[in-house]
């Protein structure tokens, strides 16, 4: 009864406790009931019910003296034991466990620790129980649990997964095991189940199952359960939060929180520990989530639950940018955003908070990087796109990633457009896990705009194809590079890109027009830039690469047109295009586009430089369409790199053609120079992209190493 009395102290535990008591009463033996009731209390009112029911069932089924053992296991708070306990229950426990698992999935994996806490009282009670039921066995479990307290804490973290863990570190469990020979076999089998589900379930409930291991398991499971915040509890916490801080989105300063929690009459040391657990971002203030977690821990502690060594998943505050799988638990409401980003991170987020943070960041960063990569490529042509992308991203995800992306793209766009595009492909592959989802989703959006392109980069090359939408490009080009070049490049690039993207040679000029139209004036001097931009835009999409090669040609073409006879360049371009086509099938598609573009361009350029601007306007729409087509076509082609190489080859190929086509040596030389520059740009971009991928991989490696380090001490201990 002591336990019961103790339990009653809990805030919410009372009513539930009473219910639990009633349930307990139904149970076979009074002792086991106590334990269970205790456990139930620990688990938290709501969870308790489930648990208690399960427990009762288990008790009925098991009807062990092992209750004492369970108690012992409680003290042990070894996650495995709880599982075992449940297992022992056998089918019943199974059922209970299973339903529980389903019910408890959300329950935090709060360490069984909480049960441990009751240990102070429970051990005694358990001992009594133990004596009653299993005599010697019971004692052992008792002895075991005690020492296991600390190990449990550690064990919990380490052994959540396996029975082996608990068996390893808790001698009593083995002892208890032999006590419950009959049970162990079935439990062992169940254990396997439990470990999987224990964590989620309040295995602790299975107290009856006796073996400490079982209990421990239960504890672990109860850990999960008790740490889950029920809705009514949450509402209560929120109300309390409001009394301290009316703004739900604001923070509760440390001093105010200290006063508030001191009222709970818990020892300062424990309050300090609770604070450490719940102040997730270590900022000295509590957000609503953190506050709820802290309050929940206080409640649990008051009910006799031991404090976990690390924050249970269900209590983790949803990090806005760091989405941990942990967050998936209780706090859905708090940060909706976490939900979306969580998609990627959850899979990755490590158990450790630090890791979680790193992981989500990684995930995000990977996504971002993925996005970034594409952005750079696109960026050059269209900063506007990036912004669009960002907007879209914010819609889907958090804005943070987008902002960095934007920044990055602008930087990269300048020179690494192509590379970025390539990287994107590579980065995408790396980040596919992360960003693929994003990229894909974004693709549809992006298709219309560069944004999509950017995203697609991260996601996959196919995305790249989507992004190409011409309209975005023109804008980016302008924003990014000097409008002068952009215009030209666009026209060129559009033509090229399209050509590259789609083998067919639709009129290329349309593209440039859009770019040109938005962009200001003649870029001639910036030809190189324009080329770069083109390349960047094109790189964004795999198809772009070939385009990019084309662009150079176009630029040269444009330059030549601007400077001198356009016809010559036009000739060159077609030749180049043709060359490209031959060199790269994908490129050929693009070339075709470019050719078309070129044709358009030539037509446009022919009339006059000025007219170029006008004509481009018309063509752009066409190139855009083509690009889309090409993109679509290209999407299937995931081999950005190959495309790039193809583009490069095309470029190179085109270069030679230039000389021949051009009757004027100067032009030829200039064109070749430009091409070389473009090639360099592309390669540079590729390089940067690859390096980024390398960085990402290194980051992942570091995070994994950190995880390993953290796990190592536990393994030793």
């Amino acid at each position, binding site marked *: 009864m002591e336990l019961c009395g103790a339990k009653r102290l809990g805030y919410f535990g009372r009513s539930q406790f009473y219910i639990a008591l009633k349930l307990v009463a139904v149970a076979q033996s009074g002792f086991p009931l106590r334990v269970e009731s205790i456990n139930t209390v620990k688990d938290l009112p709501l969870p308790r019910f489930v648990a208690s029911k399960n427990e009762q069932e288990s008790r009925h089924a098991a009807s062990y003296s092992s209750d004492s053992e369970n108690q012992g296991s409680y003290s042990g708070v070894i996650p495995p034991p709880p599982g075992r306990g449940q297992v022992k229950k056998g089918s019943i426990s199974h059922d209970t466990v299973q339903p529980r698992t389903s019910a408890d999935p959300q329950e935090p994996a709060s360490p069984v620790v909480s049960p441990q806490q009751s240990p102070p009282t429970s051990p005694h009670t358990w001992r009594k129980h133990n004596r009653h039921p299993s005599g010697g066995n019971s004692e052992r479990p008792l002895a075991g649990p005690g020492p296991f307290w600390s190990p449990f*804490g550690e064990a919990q973290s380490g052994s959540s997964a396996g029975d082996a863990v608990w068996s390893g570190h808790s001698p009593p469990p083995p002892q208890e095991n032999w006590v419950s020979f009959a049970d162990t076999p079935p439990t062992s089998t169940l254990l396997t189940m439990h470990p999987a589900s224990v964590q989620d379930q309040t295995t602790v409930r299975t107290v009856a199952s006796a073996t400490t291991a079982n209990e421990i398991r239960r504890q672990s499971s109860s850990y999960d359960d008790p740490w889950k915040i029920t809705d009514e509890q949450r509402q209560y916490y929120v109300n309390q939060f409001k009394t301290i801080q009316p703004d739900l989105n604001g923070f509760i300063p*440390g*001093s105010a*929180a*200290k006063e508030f*929690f001191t009222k709970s009459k818990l020892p*300062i*040391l424990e*309050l*300090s*520990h609770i*604070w*450490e*657990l719940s*102040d997730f971002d*270590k*900022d*000295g203030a509590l957000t609503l989530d953190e506050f709820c977690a802290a309050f929940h821990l206080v409640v649990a502690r008051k009910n006799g639950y031991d404090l976990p*060594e690390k924050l249970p998943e269900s209590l983790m505050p949803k990090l806005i940018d760091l989405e941990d799988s942990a967050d998936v638990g209780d706090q859905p409401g708090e940060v909706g955003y976490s939900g979306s980003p969580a998609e990627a991170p959850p899979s990755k987020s490590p158990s450790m908070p630090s890791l979680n943070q790193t992981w989500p960041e990684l995930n995000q960063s990977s996504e971002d990087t993925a996005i970034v990569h594409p952005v750079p490529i696109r960026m050059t042509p269209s900063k506007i796109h990036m912004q669009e992308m960002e907007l879209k991203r914010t819609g889907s995800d958090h804005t943070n990633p987008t902002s960095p992306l934007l920044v990055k793209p602008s930087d990269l766009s300048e020179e690494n457009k192509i590379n970025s595009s390539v990287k994107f492909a590579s980065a995408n592959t790396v980040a596919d896990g992360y960003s693929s989802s994003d990229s894909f989703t974004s693709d549809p959006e992006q298709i219309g705009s560069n944004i999509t392109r950017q995203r697609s980069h991260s996601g996959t090359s196919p995305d790249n194809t989507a992004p190409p939408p011409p309209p975005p490009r023109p804008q980016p080009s302008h924003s990014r590079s000097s409008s002068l070049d952009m215009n030209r490049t666009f026209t060129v690039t559009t033509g090229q890109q399209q050509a590259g993207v789609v083998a067919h040679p639709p009129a290329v000029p349309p593209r440039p027009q859009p770019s040109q139209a938005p962009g200001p004036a003649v870029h001639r001097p910036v030809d190189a830039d324009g080329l770069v931009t083109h390349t960047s835009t094109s790189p964004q999409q795999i198809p772009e690469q070939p385009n990019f090669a084309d662009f150079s040609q176009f630029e040269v073409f444009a330059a030549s047109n601007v400077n001198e006879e356009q016809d010559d360049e036009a000739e060159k371009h077609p030749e180049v295009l043709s060359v490209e086509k031959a060199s790269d099938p994908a490129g050929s598609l693009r070339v075709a586009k470019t050719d078309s573009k070129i044709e358009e361009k030539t037509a446009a350029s022919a009339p006059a430089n000025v007219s170029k601007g006008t004509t481009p306007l018309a063509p752009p729409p066409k190139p855009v369409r083509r690009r889309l087509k090409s993109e679509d076509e290209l999407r299937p082609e995931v081999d950005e790199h190959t495309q790039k190489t193809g583009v490069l080859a095309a470029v190179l190929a085109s270069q030679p053609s230039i000389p021949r086509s051009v009757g004027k040596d100067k032009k030829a030389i200039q064109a070749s120079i430009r091409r070389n520059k473009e090639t360099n740009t592309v390669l540079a971009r590729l390089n940067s992209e690859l390096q980024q991928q390398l960085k990402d991989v290194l980051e992942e490696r570091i995070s994994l190493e950190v995880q390993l*380090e*953290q796990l*190592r*001490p536990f393994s*030793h*201990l």
Partner: protein
Amino acid sequence: MAVCVAVIAKENYPLYIRSTPTENELKFHYMVHTSLDVVDEKVSAMGKALVDQRELYLGLLYPTEDYKVYGYVTNSKVKFVMVVDSSNTALRDNEIRSMFRKLHNSYTDVMCNPFYNPGDRIQSRAFDTMVTSMMIQVC
């Protein structure tokens, strides 16, 4: 791998001291105590220059036959002293620095806890965990 880790407050009383239990702890306590003089020596020497640029990492304070003692001081004159086994040749300076950095971060986290009164002994479990990991880790 650190054999002993100690956190000394500004007034030179220990806030936290922990050693691997294999060795006689008193010996380590004594070593940490004596190293405080060396720390003060280094701090005063460096302090003559711009305090802002004073480095937090003090480096090897003094080597003994079996052990090496490293020091680190924060801007609030809280000192971290770490004793490592000399036989652990693999330990590089960078690793020591990173260990101190981790210590400093953990200490900051402890400070952030409103329930912690500066000047109390550090009883944070998270801090303990981190120190344990450092001591057990081979690196």
